[in-house]
């Protein structure tokens, strides 16, 4: 299968295989994305985050269906946790998106967090670019949003929808942990349940404390299961987008995002170089042993590693 040609012809198999290659860290995948990078930048990226079970997949499904009615092409990347013990995962988000499976204008991909160093972030960045090149108008990223790697992924989005449910409880913890700063729009899902208005008011009060910028995230009650409030939610997404562009904060965000990505890739490549260097010289283990024996302190050990690395790089040229 010629993957690049397939991707450009909008062959879903090619896109799917390329995403796998990216997940598995194959350099050939990076090469293809390099060659097609000029085609990226069309898609709007929407992050959907919130605690497990709040209805993220249902919201994504309903948003996608609404946008499909307007003729938009939709990509969805749904992230679920990988078991740290077995490396396996049950990726169950598609259960809520069954009718989208056979829609030619939709591509859904489930991903495990896999837990490797920077692995998830790199894979999701890659998948977003692949779906962008594919020609999607909107790309949704659904993730639980706990743990640094997942928060980093959410930051990849142009607009982040934080999904919550009535009867906060657990969510209060999340708010304390600084999650409040991530959302551009707060959607109180399952507003068919008691206490939805109170929860919305509580979130508003939290925003009074936590958000000082000019942009004030709106709080919206929705019932995703019954499609309630979905059109309004899309309107808020568009409003946020307009604000971001008018205020110039999109430009800033994008530049920060690209910086973070480049530095991520750079860090990753340094780490890989250092590890492969150490495969020959065993320098990492030797330095660790010296720190163990108190012959070295950790700071000096890191300095030595840096010296070795620079020396190693100099020999390359």
């Amino acid at each position, binding site marked *: 299968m010629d993957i690049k040609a397939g991707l450009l012809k909008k062959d879903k198999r090619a896109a*799917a295989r390329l995403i796998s290659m990216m997940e598995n860290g194959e350099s050939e995948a990076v090469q293809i994305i390099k060659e097609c990078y000029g085609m990226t930048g069309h898609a709007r990226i929407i992050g959907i985050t919130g605690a497990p079970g709040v209805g993220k997949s249902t919201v994504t499904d309903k948003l996608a269906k609404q946008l499909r009615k307007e003729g938009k092409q939709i990509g969805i990347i749904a992230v679920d946790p990988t078991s740290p013990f077995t490396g396996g995962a049950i990726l169950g988000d598609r259960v809520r998106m069954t009718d989208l499976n056979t829609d030619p204008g939709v591509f859904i991909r489930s991903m495990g967090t896999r837990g490797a160093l920077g692995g998830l972030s790199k894979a999701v960045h890659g998948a977003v670019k692949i779906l962008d090149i594919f020609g999607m108008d909107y790309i949704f990223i659904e993730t639980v949003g706990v743990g640094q790697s997942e928060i980093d992924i959410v930051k990849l989005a142009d607009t982040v929808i934080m999904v919550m449910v009535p009867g906060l409880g657990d969510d209060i913890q999340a708010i304390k942990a600084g999650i409040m700063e991530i959302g551009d729009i707060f959607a109180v899902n399952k507003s068919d349940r008691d206490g939805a208005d109170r929860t919305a008011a509580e979130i508003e009060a939290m925003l009074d404390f936590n958000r000082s910028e000019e942009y004030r995230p709106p709080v919206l009650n929705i019932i995703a299961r019954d499609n309630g409030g979905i059109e309004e939610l899309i309107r808020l997404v568009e409003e946020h987008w307009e604000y971001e562009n008018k205020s110039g904060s999109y430009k800033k965000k994008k530049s920060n995002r690209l910086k973070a990505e480049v530095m991520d890739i750079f860090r990753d490549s340094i780490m890989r170089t250092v590890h492969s260097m150490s495969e020959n010289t065993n320098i990492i283990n030797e330095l660790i042993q010296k720190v163990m024996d108190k012959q070295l302190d950790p700071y000096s050990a890191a300095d030595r590693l840096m010296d070795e690395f620079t020396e190693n790089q100099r020999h390359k040229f």
Partner: protein
Amino acid sequence: MDRPIRVVVAKPGLDGHDRGAKVVARALRDAGMEVIYTGLRQTPEQIVETAIQEDADCVAMSILSGAHNHLFPKVVNLLKEKGIDDVLIVGGGVIPEDDIPGLIEAGVAGIFTPGTPTSVTIDFIRNNIKRK
């Protein structure tokens, strides 16, 4: 191979028995595989599309309703029609012994009936997936 095997676990047709599919899904996860669980009432077209988008190594279907002779071959044929020949197809559930040879003939690589230890299924998938 250091990448996880990706398996779509699907319930084709109107059959609502999902315990077996969930048991299998968990067992495969515990064996280190990435399981894409689709839920109940999937059409063969939906299963095939899911396998494509998820770039699955294996499609594992569970049927307890008796519709296996119709639905399993349909998925096999749809995949063939799309030119997909590198996906392993297995099935399980309440399936009479007499039906098994016909299903294998139709292109289902393995059938696993009640009482089969999940370790047997895991080994079968590991040993028979077509991509490295």
